[in-house]
């Protein structure tokens, strides 16, 4: 299952990457692959902007504008709510 093409805000600074592989182990959608010494984005459109890779990269080689891909959350945010999403209370991600 893949979402819209070419919308993700993920950016990789290959220069900085030290090839530690941590982003591979935290990414829930197999966006990266490890070439010897460097990581490579192999499935850009699969990125859901969760931010796990950015949070855990030890050298700040990754950037992504994080947010929850949830329409009700975005609507609530615009209407002044706290961006509450339906998944807060019983999503699949138990």
């Amino acid at each position: 299952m893949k979402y819209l093409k070419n919308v993700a805000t993920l950016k990789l600074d290959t220069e900085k990457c030290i090839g530690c592989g941590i982003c591979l182990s935290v990414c829930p959608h197999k966006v990266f692959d490890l070439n010897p010494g460097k990581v490579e984005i192999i499935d850009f459109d699969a990125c859901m902007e969760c931010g796990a890779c950015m949070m855990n990269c030890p050298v700040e080689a990754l950037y992504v504008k994080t947010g929850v891909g949830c329409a009700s959350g975005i609507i609530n945010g615009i209407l002044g709510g706290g961006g509450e999403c339906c998944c807060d209370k019983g999503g699949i991600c138990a």
Partner: protein
Amino acid sequence: MLEEKTCCCSRPALNEDWVIGNVETPAGVIPQVRTLLTKKDKVGAIKVRCAIGRNNYIVTPGLYAAGSPTDESMVFVSANYKLSFDHLRRALDGIDCWILVLDTKGVNVWCAAGKRTFSTDEIINQVIETELLRIVSHHKLIVPQLGAPGVSAVNVRKECGFSVIYGPVRANDIPAFINADFKATPEMRKVQFTLRDRIAVIPVELVIWFKQALGIAVVLSLLSGITHDGYTFTVMPKVFGMVFAGWLTGGAIVPALLPWLPGRSFAIKGLWCAIILWGIFFISKLTGSTMLENSGWLLMLSAIVSFMSLNFTGTSTYTSMSGVKKEMKIAMPIQIAAVIAGLIFIVWGGF
């Protein structure tokens, strides 16, 4: 004797029925949890799945024991949403270990990580509160991979000396993960959204949108009762039936068929289902006798189903915020226009 140990508010409650004993440690008595789920746990899970009392399904944060752990046993980190906690303790059956429950305000691991309540700071906070350093001799925490969006392993280590090992996405894979020397396979790292997962969320979807569907059905049936020879209630059952068929389609059919519906946009996936639903009603001559009324129903059903589908992005496990925003910008003005036009066409067409 217990009182002096439970005075602090962060100590887990010992009177829960899933607490089966105590484990003595240098930092006090730690409640030992049952690793088999009882009927009560299962009924509770079904209830939250059906959106009954799901805002209050929580576990007191703090440290718990599974089996008879020692100072060398592993520490598994979890959220204080009881469903998350139950999944974990069931998976830990037969394994002697510690469970460190973070205060995520009763929200599951992944959503809490997204909201940063499952966070670096909260891990550090619980490590300190529970005096974990006095209980275990190693410096390792196993954090569920889905907690990673809220946690910086580098900072946890820097601030409290514990190194984070990311465990598998699904608690069920923990025994295999342990056997593989704390390494998760690529399969264990990937988030799925299986038919089973999608069916499990249907009740919540239907409950969330019930009020809105009812509102539309009431307004529409009251207004379409106005005809040129007076007011009639005869259209009411038909209108209710069609609106709720749209609600069922958006809340159950679209989630179930999600990967097989054409297009990547959720609103478009919903649109296909709405058109088929309308086709069925059209053939059954339920969408009215005039062209206006017929097209009104097409607009109305499309708007209901595609709006509900668009909102299913929040429950799905693979949509990005940039993508949802892009889709909303295009779809929502059309959906709003379709509801208004649909309402006018149906009422006018049936006049």
